[in-house]
């Protein structure tokens, strides 16, 4: 799909090279954004660092952000998560699992026409809090639930 552009991005590495590519008109800004993967945020191992880098370290707890998860997961390989933001003007939702080796699991950006809703399956290494952060008008709103990952079966 966008393989050539990805190669350019990967190869560019430093932002300077990317800026140069943009200036040279090789890439349109909007298309660059489409393939961006926020490596810096996804590689953070500490939840506070991950929250900080996505600008959510001062997020306000909000009942407008609805997080539906089972409180007990029989297997950490698949934990279903359903999220709806009722915060007006929500433009993105991020899903963070505090105790995972890399807490930030995903980020969804909603354009014109999309409802701020997503359902997905995440992996959890152990029992942990899951928090979802909705962004609206530059502010962050958060909802959090604890999910217990249990041991099932005979273990044999």
């Amino acid at each position, binding site marked *: 799909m966008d393989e050539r552009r990805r190669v350019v991005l990967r190869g560019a590495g430093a932002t300077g090279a990317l800026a140069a590519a943009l200036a040279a008109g090789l890439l349109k800004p909007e298309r660059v954004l489409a393939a961006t993967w926020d490596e810096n945020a996804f590689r953070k191992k500490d939840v506070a660092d991950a929250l900080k880098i996505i600008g959510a370290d001062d997020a306000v707890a909000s009942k407008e952000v609805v997080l539906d998860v*089972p*409180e*007990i997961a*029989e297997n950490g390989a698949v934990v*279903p998560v359903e999220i709806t933001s009722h915060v007006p003007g929500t433009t993105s939702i991020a899903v963070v699992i505090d105790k995972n080796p890399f807490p930030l699991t995903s980020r969804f950006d909603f354009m014109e026409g999309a409802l701020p809703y997503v359902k997905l*399956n995440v992996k959890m290494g152990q029992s942990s809090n899951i928090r979802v952060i909705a962004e609206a008008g530059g502010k962050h709103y958060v909802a*959090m639930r*604890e999910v217990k990952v249990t041991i*099932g079966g005979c273990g044999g």
Partner: protein
Amino acid sequence: MLALRTSAVLAAAALAIAAAPVHAQDEKKEIEKYQKMLAEGSPVELFELEGADLWKKKQGPKNESLEKCDLGMGPGVLKGAYAHLPRYFADTGRVMDLESRLVHCMVTLQGRDYKEATKRVFGNADKPSELEYLAAYVVGKSRGVKIAVSTRNPKAKAAYELGRQLFHYRAGPWDFSCASCHGVAGKRIRMQSLPLLDKPSGARRTYATWPAYRVSNSQMKTFQWRLNDCYRQMRFPEPTFGSDATVALTMFLAVTANGEPYDGPGTKR
């Protein structure tokens, strides 16, 4: 830096109030919720799609597809076929389950060698087996059809009786039978609920949701696998794929589940 950390900690403290603890009485409800959400967000349909392609794929010495395979309702008839299996097949004089019948079709229609067709009956997440894909596809065609397995044929009846005896047969170093874990209602192993399988109350829903996608190993699992892995955990020798004993046990469970609308391929933890 310090200020940022403090605010993060405070935010976490405020949130802790919102995160309600799990009470024992809610455990069952929450596990049921997990299972429901798991089924709703299941990738099992991907296996049905692959299975459909495999069903139509010409292969083997005869370069034939399985499209004319008779699963008991006539050549190529898939709708509802699984809901009537295992059953007695006059052409082989045997009671057969889905997997043994599929292999029979590979041998007779595609001209394949039995050994080759059963060389790799259980796959893995990286490479599922042919039978796992095919089972997903075929059983999906019985979704919503009531399970109606007949014991009218004497051999079918004998298979049922043998299956019932096998279910209760205690042996092995740990003295287990199927009933050791599946003979009492309302018990669990670790946090895993154990269905009572020799009574319709427990057998119906459980049987109707196998074969299934197992999220613990991201794999589509057949019913032959289910029995195989139970016997492994019972510390028995290995049941031979497609053998009369495995078909008999399946027969016993299927008949006990009669009347339940089939609802697979399922999704399990």
